[in-house]
């Protein structure tokens, strides 16, 4: 049965939540004064959750993020920080391709954000119809740009070039932004060494089995503590830990400081993913900082069917190895050790658990799909680069 996704504010816990007969479990995001402090998974009995059940579950969230935010609130530090720093102006960019339904919900949530004089930019990447164009026309004050060079990273680069403001905040077209999303991202740019801020991505719905598996296999969330990543605190080759490209904000001048997104990577190219990891690692390598800010929350709709899930996991396998291949070509020999570590600690363990039918095991076809993706990764990267090279040559 499905899992309900709920969002509860600590100071306003409802007495009862009913109407959950479709669901057998609930994933509850807990907030304290609007800031997410933890999540809890609990069973649903007879279609409702009483407040006693909630209390029992909530009492387990006595971790440091909760107390840290509580103390900050008590001391009034949020207001203090707010007055001392005027955040910059931002452009919200959504790169999309043939997903008008999801995009509509996304745009609706973005237009309802509090006004901080942001501009909204939709980059339509090689669409097969004009549906997105007409959808955007239905909203006022949204810029529409069409990028015919296929590739998610190409779209992102276009967004960076087209943006009028200094910060570009990216969100996936199948995600919905939370109320404080933009302000949480922007306030972290006070430190000039920070080039990128990533946020927490929670699943919007966990109705199908595929979505539940995705959330368990490779969740987007990176915890509830704000972390500042520098080159000395994390190995740039495992930059996937700093966050996900589904929810990130970059400075516009990243094009000069670090360089554009690698257009041989990520969706739309044979490598399918890994474009965001690559830019994170490049930012870290150049000595800049990446901040993971869990208050910048967005809700992502995972793929609903198992076939799509397989394709996504395959894409992840390809993406990681493609990224490592790109590092290898720059002389980073330690990717071999990393690949071996990942395989032996993570993938092999999962495989063995699955073969032995241990509890909490992953379906074996998902694991094998990811492994197939890993094997295909390096070749995919080389293929993608050749295509890019040919295209550039023919354009020039």
């Amino acid at each position, binding site marked *: 049965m499905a899992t309900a996704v709920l969002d509860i504010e600590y100071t306003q816990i409802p007495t009862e939540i009913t109407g959950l007969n479709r669901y057998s479990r609930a994933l509850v995001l807990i907030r304290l004064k609007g800031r997410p402090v933890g999540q809890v998974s609990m069973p649903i009995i007879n279609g409702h959750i009483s407040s006693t059940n909630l209390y029992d579950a909530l*009492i387990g969230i*006595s971790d440091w993020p909760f*107390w840290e935010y509580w103390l900050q609130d008590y001391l009034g530090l949020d207001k203090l920080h707010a007055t001392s720093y005027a955040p910059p102006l931002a452009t919200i960019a959504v790169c999309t391709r043939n997903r008008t339904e999801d995009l509509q919900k996304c745009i609706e949530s973005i237009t309802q954000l509090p006004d901080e004089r942001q501009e909204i930019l939709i980059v339509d990447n090689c669409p097969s119809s004009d549906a997105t164009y007409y959808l955007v026309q239905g909203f006022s004050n949204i810029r529409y740009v069409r990028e015919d060079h296929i590739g998610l990273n190409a779209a992102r680069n276009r967004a960076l070039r087209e943006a009028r403001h200094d910060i570009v905040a990216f969100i996936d077209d199948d995600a919905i932004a939370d109320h404080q999303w933009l302000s949480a991202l922007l306030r972290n740019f006070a430190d000039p060494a920070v080039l990128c801020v990533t946020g927490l991505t929670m699943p919007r719905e966990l109705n199908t089995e595929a979505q539940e598996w995705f959330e368990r296999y490779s969740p987007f969330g990176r915890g509830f503590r704000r972390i500042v990543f520098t080159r000395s605190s994390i190995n740039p080759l495992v930059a996937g830990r700093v966050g996900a490209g589904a929810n990130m904000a970059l400075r516009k001048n990243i094009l000069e400081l670090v360089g554009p997104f690698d257009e041989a990577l990520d969706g739309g190219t044979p490598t399918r993913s890994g474009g965001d990891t690559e830019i994170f690692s490049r930012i870290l390598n150049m000595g800049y900082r990446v901040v993971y800010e869990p208050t910048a929350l967005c809700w992502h709709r995972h793929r609903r069917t198992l076939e799509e899930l397989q394709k996504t996991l395959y894409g992840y396998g390809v993406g990681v190895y493609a990224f490592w291949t790109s590092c290898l070509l720059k002389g980073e020999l330690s990717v071999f050790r990393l690949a071996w570590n990942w395989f032996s600690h993570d993938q092999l363990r999962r495989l063995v658990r699955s073969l032995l039918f241990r*509890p909490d095991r992953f379906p074996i076809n998902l694991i094998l799909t990811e492994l197939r993706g890993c094997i295909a990764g390096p070749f995919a990267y080389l293929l993608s680069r050749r295509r890019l090279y040919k295209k550039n040559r023919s354009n020039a």
Partner: protein
Amino acid sequence: MKPIWGIDRYEFLHILVRYHGKPIRWVYFNNRSYQRVVSAERLYEAITEQIWSKLGMALIMDQINHKIPDKLRLPPISIVVCTRDRTVQLTNCLQTLMTIDYPDYEIIIVDNAPSSEKTAQLVTNFPVRYVREERPGLDWARNRGISEARHSIIAFTDDDAMPDRYWLRAIASAFAESEAMTVTGLVVPAELETSAQINFEIGYGGMSKGFRRRTINRNGLTMRELLWASNFGVGANMAFRRELFESIDPFDIALDVGTPSKGGGDIEMFHRILAQGYTLVYEPAAIVWHAHRRSNSFLSLQVHSNGCAFGAYLLTCARNRTVSRLSILHFSISEWLGWWIFRRMFRPNGFPRRLILNELIGASLSPFAYWRAQKHAKKLLKSR
């Protein structure tokens, strides 16, 4: 909070901290210098030092939880204590039961195949009902207790256990707040004087199942969790609604203390209740103080019996087909034998290896024990 006196014999203090009656956590206090008394300030210090975040959470929860009902319905409860030739412990138990703060309850002592009249004589001093069950077996006694009980909620405890003052209140509130059919509670050690008791409580895990209240239902459980029924509670502290026994079979008479299977009757009942879709609530505010076995030989016997009992329980589940037999088989090999016993052989974590070995021996003997118990039970049924 008041200072604690007379602790010069003790090196450590194991303190159960409660807030408004709800247990929060254990706090460990070090008395290496063998002082005679510890002051309230030092206690405060030690407590806040170790569990400040849980205390803070309890405070906040208290404030949010403003729907505290003033008039809690307190239905009458029957307490059933099954005993067999243990008058000393039973005296303690009865004395504690007299001090329970609850408006309406009755106590039934089920004397199980006694060898003498001592229990009957002891019981005349207390305002309790005495019932005698000649067929040996704890589950026979429990079933007799169920049939003798008059009220709608039946609470079980052991003869070597001492329930807390607010035990019944906690049980009543747990029943009132949910549609649970069963409520189990927290069992904490009454004393930790000997090394056997310390080993049992700290090395083995004791009988406590944690401090978080849980509502358990088949929906939220994986197969593995459902089979680890010993995580749901202990027979020394459990309560049922009477109407439950109209829809499911009573305690399995081939199990538990007094039969060759040496235990497992309580966990088998929990498992069956959940497997049939009812709800069980583990309420840590319902506290029972249990006197663990003092001597090491008893401890090894206990551990041996645990191994035997769990095996018998699994075989009973297989017989009843509450879950598929293949999953029970898989569970016994990978989870029970593999994870619980063998893994702890390699990493004992302070628990003596020979005791784990004892448990393993008990486990391996469990099929025979089960078979013998089944024969024994059939014989007893026939001779009714």
